[in-house]
């Protein structure tokens, strides 16, 4: 059984294996479809229309499936690789090891936001952005500039304490665990981390930054933690909800997987620790 680990505990070889597999997917031309798929969904998921990947109950199972596909793609390059997660409640500075030159590389430079260190720096020649919002084809970050602080452990705990998975109207104005985790309401966990990283992570093409996967892996872990703490609660809604993916309806773009299929992550992988 594959075990997903905290990125802070990875060995040098584990970091290298992950980075090399990501770079190989990019070289083979298989990375950019993740960027375009994500953007296609995020710009069409709307509060009053059809919504699958974002601002809706299926935000969590959709991304779980999306990450699984990416992880399986990495494993086709190197079977030993699993997605690491980034616990931003613990590793919360611009100089944390996740931003080291041996892993994701560091902050963007002040002049133009360009990431100039690590394997995803444009100058390395292996990370030229194809699916992007504007003419700049280099990865950008602006750590901690648009919002000062990453969410704290206490803030994450306050969201994990919410007992109801999601509520009508099942969008960005909903009360409940999912929307507070996604961040449209309340202390704002997921959205705020995208904004904290800035640059491409703030855009609809956020998977251009490999930090996307480590961030969403932690979001996925928080969902698993919520499930452990609320055994009597589960995914909502269960049926007959317009524009929203009900428990047993299939999700685009796969059309063969439902939120119900994604509830038990231990069929696919486990996490090294609880939250």
């Amino acid at each position, binding site marked *: 059984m594959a075990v997903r680990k905290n990125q802070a505990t990875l060995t040098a070889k584990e970091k290298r294996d992950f980075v090399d597999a990501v770079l190989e997917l990019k070289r083979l031309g298989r990375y950019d479809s993740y960027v375009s798929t994500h953007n296609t969904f995020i*710009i069409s998921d*709307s*509060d009053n229309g059809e919504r699958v990947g974002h601002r809706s109950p299926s935000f969590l199972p959709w991304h779980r499936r999306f990450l699984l596909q990416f992880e399986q793609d990495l494993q086709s390059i190197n079977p030993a690789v699993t997605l690491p997660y980034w616990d931003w409640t613990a590793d919360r500075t611009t100089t944390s090891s996740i931003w080291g030159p041996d892993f994701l590389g560091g902050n963007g430079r002040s002049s133009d*936001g360009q990431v100039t260190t690590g394997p995803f720096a444009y100058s390395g020649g292996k990370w030229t952005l194809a699916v992007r*919002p504007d003419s700049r084809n280099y990865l950008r970050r602006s750590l901690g500039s648009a919002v000062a602080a990453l969410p704290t452990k206490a803030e994450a705990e306050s969201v994990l304490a919410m007992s109801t998975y999601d509520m009508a109207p099942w969008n960005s104005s909903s009360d409940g665990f999912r929307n507070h985790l996604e*961040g449209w309401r309340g202390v704002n966990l997921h959205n*705020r981390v995208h904004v904290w990283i800035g640059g491409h992570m*703030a855009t609809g093409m956020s998977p251009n930054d490999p930090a996307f996967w480590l961030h969403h892996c932690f979001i996925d872990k928080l969902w698993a933690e919520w499930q452990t703490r609320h055994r009597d609660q589960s995914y909502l809604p269960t049926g007959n909800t317009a524009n929203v993916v009900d428990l047993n309806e299939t999700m685009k773009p796969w059309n063969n997987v439902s939120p119900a299929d994604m509830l038990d992550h231990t069929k696919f992988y486990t996490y090294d620790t609880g939250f």
Partner: protein
Amino acid sequence: MSENSVIPSNGSSPEGRHSSDLTRRRMLQGAGVALAAAAGTAVIGFTGPSRQSAVAADPGAGDEFDEVYQGRRLQGRRLDGGHDSGHGGHHGSGYQVLIDGEELHVMQNADGTWISVVNHYQTHATPRSLARAAVIDLQGAELLPLS
């Protein structure tokens, strides 16, 4: 006046954004064009004051606009019959924002705030502040056509 003083640490949440905007609006009421212009020009740079400061002098969300901001032409307009909130058309917002004639994909949230493809996880009170935030992020780069 510190540009950051009224922005909470979770400034990207709708609630935080609203209180921030309202506070800044109150602060700027009656302050005149000079101060509003200063707020608009104080947001250049990556590590400087937060981009939210450009929000302060904005009109309401329903307003259309055609202005030059940091050398870029910004246009915002409601689309005729643009009340389709689903897929297709102009991507559901019923509102179009152009930067130098190229469309910036925008979307309105249920609480009335706005996001764009450039700032997809951070809400803005109006399409104009959203367009200005995109200009600041673009640093002169051209938007690519929507696919």
